[in-house]
């Protein structure tokens, strides 16, 4: 048993060492931000799966995303019910079943963590990322993952971490893990991307 573990480890190490991941180890947070900063905006479809401990089954949402540099983010939820969200700077406007509501993101840490992690990544805003999170980038330019852990204790009390995965300039997946164990995963499929 112990021997097999060791063999597996050695084999695994060898595999990692020879993979293109290791060869591209020079891909740093600055590179990701520079790549993203060149993108003026884009449209995408998203599918969100939210696992809530108190619910027997996960909640699902889907719709489209619109991003414009540097801090305009729109989310058009189509199913299960229509809702339109606009993030412009520090303000979130929600148009939904209960009418329009405006929220200052700074007032809502949970919203701030989920929106600022995505917005700052999309904008290539390394300064903001590093202001709110301890950011760790892993992988290569062709397949990277960015782990964001909130710095502020009041933020960390609500959101444990945000993991963002992508390929080159494309953000493919955002996973938010709440402090109470609930996980929200959003898969993003780009529709069109306009270079800067």
């Amino acid at each position, binding site marked *: 048993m112990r021997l097999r573990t060791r063999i597996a480890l050695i084999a695994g190490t060898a595999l990692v060492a020879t993979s293109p991941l290791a060869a591209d180890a020079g891909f740093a947070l600055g590179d990701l931000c520079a790549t993203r900063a060149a993108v003026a905006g884009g449209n995408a479809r998203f599918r969100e799966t*939210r696992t*809530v*401990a*108190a*619910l*027997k*089954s996960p*909640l699902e*949402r889907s719709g489209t995303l619109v991003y414009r540099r540097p801090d305009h983010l729109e*989310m058009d*939820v189509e199913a*299960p*019910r229509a*809702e339109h*969200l606009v993030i412009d700077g*520090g303000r*979130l406007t*929600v148009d*939904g*079943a209960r009418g329009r*509501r405006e929220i*200052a*993101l*700074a*007032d*809502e*840490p*949970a*919203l701030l963590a*989920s929106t600022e992690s995505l917005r700052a990544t999309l904008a290539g805003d390394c300064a903001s990322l590093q202001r709110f999170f301890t950011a760790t980038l892993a992988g290569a330019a062709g397949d990277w993952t960015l782990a964001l852990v909130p710095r*502020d204790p*009041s933020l960390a*009390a*609500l959101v444990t971490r945000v993991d963002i995965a992508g390929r080159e300039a494309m953000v493919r997946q955002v996973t938010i893990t*709440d402090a*109470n164990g*609930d996980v929200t995963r959003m898969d993003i499929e780009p529709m069109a991307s306009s270079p800067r």
Partner: protein
Amino acid sequence: MSVARRAWLVVGAALAAAIVLAAAYVRVDRDFSAFLPRGGDPVQRFVARELRDSAAARVVLIRLGGADRATLAAASTALEAALSADPRFVAVNNGSLASGLRDLPAMRSARYLVDPDAASRMTPDGLAASLARDLDALQGSEGVLVRRWLTDDPTGETLAMLDSLRASSRVRRESGVWFDAQGEGAMLVAATAAPASDPAAQRDAMAAIDAAFARVRGASPVAIAYSGAAILAAESETAIADDVARVSALGTLGVVAILWFAYRSARVVLLCAVPAVCGVIAGVAATAAGFGSVHAITLAFGTTLLGEAVDYPSYLLTAYAPGSTWPSVRDSVRLPYVLAVLTTAAGALAFLASEIDGLVEVGVLTAVGIAAAGAIAWWFVPRGVADDWRFRAPVPSRAPVGSSRSFSRVSRAAVLLLPTLILLALARGHPFFADDLARMNPVPAATIAKDRALRAASGAPEVGRFVLVRAADTEAALEAAERTARALADARAAHEIDGFDSVTRWLPSAATQRARRAALPDPAALAANLERATRDTPFRAEAFAPFLHDVEAARTGPLLTPASYAGTGIGLTLGALLGRDASGAWTMLPLSGVHDADALAARIARVGGDVRYVDLRAATTTLFEGVRKRTLAAIGAGLVVVLAILAVGLRSPMAALFAMLPAVLGATWSALVVVAFGNGLSVFHLIALLLVVGIGVNYALFVRAAPSPRHAVRTLAVVGATTATAFAMMATSTLAVLRALGVTVLAGTLATLFICAVAFAGSAARRRR
């Protein structure tokens, strides 16, 4: 050793010892309630205490401005962190999340006891309705808010409390912190840990804010402004001390210059100060011995009234002519001198009947001080003057008015009557008395303006109108407040008021809390209800174990007390609106937008118990009106005493009346000047008028007894010039109180001098005939 030298040594040593003793043992009291009528209205007592010291007074409002919003928000956050870490401050809040979250645990522990409908939401139907709403929210973007407290608070109490707090806050938020309505200044609020009545600690807190801000600011252009009742008081105390020091220095300089001009001897000038200083010390010592402490206002009034004592040496010195001996000088001025001292001391003693502790103190301080100063001047001045000293100053030998023979009795009457009529005409239509607190505020005007601007910017309510509930203990007060809140809800529905607040929103009475606890289901019942409510829903009933736990904790745990909110923003509000005093407990229910005060007062009266509608401005005005009336009565009594003493001393009621006439007329002119050109007479003006009468009577007595016109002119020139100079300096003060004293005494003294001169012209003319 000469007699003079020995006398100097004895007096010097006694002075030094007295000053050391006074500094060591005399306690200066700042409790304004000493100046309220004894056994006054409980509302008046309450108002007076609120003016001086309350939890609300400890609150400091801070505004950061002068930079863009992002910079201000960052500065606000940094300052909030710095002050929160400082033990000299409690409940620091800049509207940020971090400061909001500090309040959250206390609020959440209270949630099932402060909501009257909490139990009704725990029935199967109630839970089903709440869960349906939660599911709806979870599917939307705001699900993040619901998700946070779903398993321990499915009925949404926390969010409802947060919404209620936000709704009652009138400031806007930008970049995550509070901003003023224009969005140009970041607002913070903090409370000092030290009581409001501790000016040293308040100054220390100000220094702490300054230091923290200096670190936060760095090289940025951010500017700070802050204010608060206690900080304001501490700040104004410094300003008052500075102004008093400046005014006294100027006054002393002016008086010394005049005395030097008159007497041409440093020794004699020094001599003139000795009786007054001794008088102050004796008066303070007597007051401290009798009352245990000396009130700061007493000290100010008392020493002002003792200003008359500076004249006593001059009455002796100006009578000293070449060739005369001290026994002969004393003989020549004995009657006016004794009467001058006696009338002032006895007049001051009339304050003893005022039933206002502070005024009684003023009376004792003045009476003892004047008697001591009079005695010391009488015995010490002749011994202190060098044997070869002579009066050499060039003083006009003839009275300027008395030189004309054409001054008939009729024209003299006209000269005195005409200004009186003119002033009466000018004063017509102006309010005679000023009982408005704002006009008597000893706080510098600029400081008040800053406080007002900050209050407006922060949306902090001006606690001008409220319902005051008083009861034997806190529980009874809270129960009465709950009844009052129900009546106020009706008043709001009837549009008598726009809104109100009550501490029972966060701290219900124990009776109400027990009733709410009794209504909460036990764990088995709640679990069964949850089971039924989650059936046929996506929810898992077993996920709500934290909810069962929290409800059981509320059902069996301790009741809420003010201590439950220690260190939170709610705790700050509770501290300001709920308190205890010697007669029990009280709570205030602040009102906003009172439209129909009469209907409201009638409605409040029906609540029962000691519950009343208070309009703070009206109440303070009534309060000061009461103080002013009693002061006026005391002064009236003092005048009668003075008249009686003069009648006995001069052996003629008519002579007594004539001796008082110039002073009373001078005081009248001065009062009319204040009414016509000022804002009306306040307590401070009345005290000043008493001084005018005291000084004026002395003038008349000495003029009457002067052996020659030359003597009379000399005496009046010296004492009139010193008094006018000292009070002219006081009139330049930036403080309303000192200005009132200065202007009134200056105008009164000059008027009295003029009237004496006119009257003197008559007596001189009569003598020549």
